[in-house]
């Protein structure tokens, strides 16, 4: 029964592309109900890790389990929020249609129609993310904050037990990011959340666990990061705000700036 308490369980996972290794021997267990931030430098394998959890990328070796099963068989339990900038917002589709796509999982693709249950769930998600009044807008006509919330609504439409987000606040201003984080905190009461982020502020204020990835897993636990770890991870001290001390900057960039 122990494994049912785990949302994600990676054992000795190595992965990469072609001859390039992105992740080496990762052992990571994420408990059900946690709010975990994945941090690390660019090219450190954060997105690769996310893709492995989503079942989009087969690891070279090791075992991946999402709620005790191969992610391929548990896709309906995962809500994925990709990087907002990765999507073509010129595409002729309305907010409601985007969120509805989350309802297609596990359905027969031929002659597919949305049921009234689907439509109700979509409406509920739009309302929860406060974008119901924008439902018929083409997605290009949204602000960055609204667009980010639409992507979260689409992931919620899946009715996930695990929410995976890839840099959910990149490009958002302070008030829009706060709004997203507060929402994620609320959602965390119902589901496990894993978020790739560069935002060190969020780590101290909202996230309950962090995992530091730079090809290897350097740290996993409460967000009390020592300056030594940061140096080990990023190669130089970056601005970082310590847990529980929201305005203390640990160290400025020194030396080669």
């Amino acid at each position: 029964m122990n494994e049912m308490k785990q949302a994600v369980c990676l054992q000795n996972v190595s992965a990469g592309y072609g001859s390039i290794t992105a992740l080496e021997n990762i052992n990571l267990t994420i408990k059900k109900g946690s709010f975990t931030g994945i941090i690390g430098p660019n090219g450190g394998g954060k997105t690769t890790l996310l893709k492995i959890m989503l079942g989009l990328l087969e690891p070279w070796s090791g075992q991946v389990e999402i709620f005790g099963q191969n992610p391929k068989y548990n896709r309906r339990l995962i809500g994925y929020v990709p990087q907002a900038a990765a999507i073509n917002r010129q595409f002729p589709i309305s907010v409601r249609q985007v969120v509805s796509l989350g309802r297609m999982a596990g359905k027969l693709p031929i002659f597919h129609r949305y049921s009234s249950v689907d439509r109700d769930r979509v409406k509920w998600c739009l309302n929860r993310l406060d974008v119901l009044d924008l439902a018929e807008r083409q997605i290009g006509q949204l602000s960055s904050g609204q667009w980010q919330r639409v992507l979260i609504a689409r992931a919620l439409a899946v009715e996930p037990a695990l929410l995976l987000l890839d840099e959910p606040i990149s490009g958002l201003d302070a008030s829009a990011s706060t709004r997203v984080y507060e929402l994620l905190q609320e959602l965390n009461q119902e589901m496990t959340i894993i978020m790739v982020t560069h935002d060190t502020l969020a780590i101290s204020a909202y996230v309950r666990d962090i995992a530091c990835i730079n090809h290897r897993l350097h740290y996993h636990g409460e967000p009390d990061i020592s300056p030594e770890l940061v140096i080990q991870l990023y190669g130089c001290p970056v601005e970082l705000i310590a847990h529980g001390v929201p305005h203390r900057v640990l160290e400025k960039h020194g030396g080669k700036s």
Partner: protein
Amino acid sequence: MISALLQYSFLQNAVMGALLASIACGIIGAIIVEKKLVMMSGGIAHTAFGGIGLGYYLQVEPMYTALGFSMFSALSIAQIQRRSTVMPDVLIGMFWPLGMALGILFISFTPGYPPSMSTYLFGDILTVSVKDLLVMAILDSLLLLITISFFHLLQAYLFDEEFSNALGLPVVLAESLTYAMIALTVVVLIRVVGIILILALLCVPPALARIFRADLPGIMGLSVILGAMFCLAGLAISYHYNVASGAAIVILSVLVYTLVQLLSGSGRILFHRKHLAVDSSDESVHTMKK
């Protein structure tokens, strides 16, 4: 021309051909413009020339061999793309001339005088036969059937492939259907605009339609109507001035597109202002509504 239309069956065929072509060009045109597969479609269209050459060489209907060639290359290109990291551009650069080269090869093997290829290269809507119309109608029905029955899957694939994969949707099926539909469209359009000029008829109607509509079915529908207008007008020009129908349709449609873009320039500035207002922040949108 109206009295001639009632009198001559070749003109009636031409009108039917124009209408059938517009269905294919509107639906698939919208898909390839949104998925950025325009040049890919050009590549697939040119592979059909190899099929036409083979048809002459084997003395069978060139439309059928063209369909076989474009379908085979479309699905092969999709398959190679899935298995490797090669850029689509590179594959287009290979398959496009490969089709043309095979066509020339087969035609030079064909005994006797080389046949005139201009019908297939530039289109000749005035010589469309009843048999051509039948083929076009069958392929059009197939295109409509696929688009309607797989609409949500196609929409998901065209809009966000990665998310569709994460959901476990059959993305490979969606991609194969899309590429197969491009191959079918090429064959529908060959007799009307010809291999070389297909791209314009695929691009212009959806490019115009998306100025006025922001939903995929709307763009498809409006593209069909615009495509029909261009084809019929092109047919009239082709009949009156005795020029290749493909040339008339392409020149007309690109001219109309350019004029619309130039004339709507002032309108677009207003449109942009509206965009900027919406874009600034959530709060400003809310206050604007109040």
